């Protein structure tokens, strides 16, 4: 065990443990969307879990705990980076909270509250995808305008099945989570695995009607 200093609190942790996970487990909240517990290779895509170490911003999910590490999670530089990243995420997110199945269970709402950022980002152009609903998958529907591209669904699928049946397709603003059709003679049937649906922080993936979990 080693001791680290997070915002003047002494925390004991395993040497080499993940900093983000250590902070979260000790009740210090750092906004995050893409981190999966005990992930060996953190995806580090959402750019929300910034902390300050030795005056430099570091994504906490990519940092390992070592003796005497001094971390600050609440500096103005850190908050500014987080707010910008978060506002950019919201600029491609369809804000329809009242109609949304994730309402009140949504990580975006939680982070917005924590960072004190409105859900409608001012000064940024809203860029939504058309069409937003993708029903190309045999049994999943992905709401591309709700999806924050955190990649958790791709990661859990990969961990569970060795291959991911969901993937990132295209590039840049056009990037989507996609499940391309499988070879005809090996039809992709619903096995009852709903890992991707359960892990989604914004409930962007759902089962098609008539398919029961």
């Amino acid at each position, binding site marked *: 065990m080693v001791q680290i200093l997070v915002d003047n609190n002494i925390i004991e942790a395993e040497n080499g443990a993940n900093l983000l996970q250590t902070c979260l487990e000790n009740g210090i909240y750092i906004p995050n969307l893409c981190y999966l517990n005990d992930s060996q290779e953190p995806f580090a895509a959402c750019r929300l879990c910034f902390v300050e170490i030795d005056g430099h911003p570091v994504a906490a999910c990519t940092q390992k705990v070592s003796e005497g590490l001094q971390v600050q999670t609440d500096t103005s530089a850190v908050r500014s980076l987080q707010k910008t990243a978060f506002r950019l995420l919201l600029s491609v997110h369809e804000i329809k909270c009242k109609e949304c199945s994730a309402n009140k269970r949504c990580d975006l709402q939680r982070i917005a509250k924590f960072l004190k950022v409105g859900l409608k980002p001012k000064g940024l152009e809203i860029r939504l995808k058309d069409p937003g609903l993708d029903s190309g998958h045999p049994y999943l529907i992905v709401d591309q305008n709700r999806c924050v591209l955190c990649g958790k669904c791709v990661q859990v699928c990969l961990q569970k099945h060795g291959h*991911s049946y969901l993937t990132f397709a295209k590039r840049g603003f056009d990037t989507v989570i996609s499940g391309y059709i499988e070879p005809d003679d090996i039809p992709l049937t619903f096995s009852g695995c709903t890992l991707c649906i359960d892990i989604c922080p914004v409930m962007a993936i759902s089962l098609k009607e008539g398919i029961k979990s």
Partner: protein
Amino acid sequence: MDVILTSEDKVIIEKLGSRLTQCEKVKTNLIPILQMIQEELKYLPPEVIKMVAKYLEIPGSEVYGVATFYNQFKFNPPGKNPIKVCLGTACHVRAGDIILENFERKLGISEGQTTEDREFSIERVACVGCCALAPVAIMGDTVHGHMAPSKVEGLILRVQVEHEKAERERQKIESDRQ
């Protein structure tokens, strides 16, 4: 828009299927295989994605994800008259996007797509190197400079008229023979 395979396409795909078996079944071969198919077929229809996925024993989604990341892979067959609209800096400043929009509206397809008769396809490109002529569009091998929305219809019409003319001449030759 779903692409309908032509009989020529089917022949090429069949040949590609047998060529696939010569490639080693390793994941690192994915991009070389896709490149070979792009070279032969000029585009990657869903049938081919499935074929490659099956051969390499990976989910189709993985093949699709890789293929859509790279610009060199196309998902629609090239048109007989490929239209490239330049959206480089100079053309952007001279409203190249309006030219692109005009082509898209006139042909009823979006950038990256091909008309159903495979006559036209639209692609956006970065600088083509003649910024003095901005905005620029290229149809086939011909560069059209100082493009204006009014010229778009003319260009498409010209191809269609030439097409009809060739068709009439062909019919005439046939009727002369009889």
